[in-house]
C-alpha cells in the first residue's frame, strides 16, 4: 500500500480516496431516496382520511431535536479536525459527544412517536400519516444505524489507533452524519415548520 504523507491520513492511500469518492456518490443516492419521500409527502398533504393532520405536531420536541442534531454536526466536525491534528483523545471525546447527542435525538423522536400514536395517529390511519411516519422513520433509522456505526469507529480507533484505515472510516462517518443533519433541516423546515404555519 502506497501511503502519501503529504495528505491527511484519511486521504493518504488510493484505496482511501476511492472510498471517499464512492461515499459521496452513495450520499447522492441518498438524496434521491429522501427526495422520493418528500415528493410523496407533499402530494399526500391533506390526504388525512379520518385521521388527524399536522395539528399533532408540537414545537418543543422538534426544537430540542433540531438543536441536538445541529450541535452534533458541529461536534463531529470538531472530531475530524482533532483527528487531523493527530489528537486521538480529543477526537474520541468529540465523537462520543456526537453519539450522545444522537441518542438524545432518538429518545425525543421515539417519545414523539408514542405521543402521536396516543393521539390516534398511527402509520395505518391514513395516507398522510403513512408517509409522515415513513419519512421521519427513515431518517430516524439512519440515525440509529449511524449510532452503532459511530460506536464501532470509537472502538476501532481506541483499539488500532489513528491509522489510514480507521481515519478513513471516521471521516466517511462524519460525511454521513453531516448529511443526516441536512436531511433533518429539510424535515424540520418542510414537514414541521410548514405544517405548523
Amino acid at each position: 500500500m502506497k501511503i502519501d504523507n503529504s495528505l491527511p491520513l484519511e486521504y493518504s492511500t488510493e484505496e482511501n480516496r476511492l472510498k471517499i469518492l464512492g461515499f459521496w456518490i452513495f450520499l447522492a443516492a441518498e438524496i434521491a431516496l429522501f427526495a422520493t419521500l418528500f415528493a410523496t409527502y407533499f402530494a399526500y398533504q391533506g390526504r388525512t382520511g379520518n385521521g388527524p393532520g399536522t395539528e399533532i405536531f408540537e414545537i418543543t420536541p422538534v426544537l430540542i431535536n433540531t438543536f441536538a442534531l445541529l450541535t452534533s454536526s458541529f461536534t463531529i466536525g470538531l472530531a475530524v479536525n482533532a483527528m487531523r491534528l493527530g489528537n486521538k483523545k480529543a477526537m474520541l471525546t468529540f465523537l462520543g459527544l456526537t453519539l450522545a447527542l444522537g441518542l438524545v435525538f432518538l429518545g425525543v423522536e421515539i417519545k414523539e412517536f408514542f405521543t402521536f400514536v396516543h393521539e390516534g395517529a398511527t402509520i395505518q390511519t391514513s395516507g398522510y400519516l403513512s408517509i409522515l411516519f415513513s419519512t421521519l422513520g427513515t431518517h430516524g433509522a439512519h440515525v440509529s444505524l449511524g449510532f452503532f456505526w459511530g460506536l464501532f469507529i470509537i472502538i476501532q480507533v481506541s483499539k488500532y489507533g489513528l491509522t489510514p484505515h480507521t481515519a478513513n472510516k471516521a471521516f466517511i462517518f462524519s460525511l454521513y452524519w453531516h448529511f443526516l443533519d441536512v436531511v433533518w433541516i429539510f424535515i424540520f423546515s418542510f414537514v414541521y415548520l410548514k405544517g405548523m404555519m
Partner: protein
Amino acid sequence: MAQLFPKHHVMGFIFSLVLTVVAMAVVVYDLSYTAAMAILLITAFMQAGVQLVMFMHAGESEDKVTIYTNVIYMVFFAIVTILGTLLLFIWDM
C-alpha cells in the same frame, strides 16, 4: 485548545443556529404563504450549503468537480421528482 475549535467551524455552527431561528419566523409571525415558503426555502438551502462546504469539506480533494457535479445532478433529480409529482397530483389534477 483553540486549535480544537477552528474559527470557521464555530462560525458555521453559529450561522446554522441563526438560520434556524430565522426559519422559526414562519410559525411565530403571521406571514403570507409565499413569503413563508420563500423564507423556508432560502434558509434550508443555505443550511445545506453550510454543511456541504464548511463541514463536509466537499471542495478539498482533487475530486472536487466530480463531487459537486454529483451533488448538483442529484439535487436536479430531486427537484424534478418533487415538482413533477406535484404537477401531476396537485397543480394540474
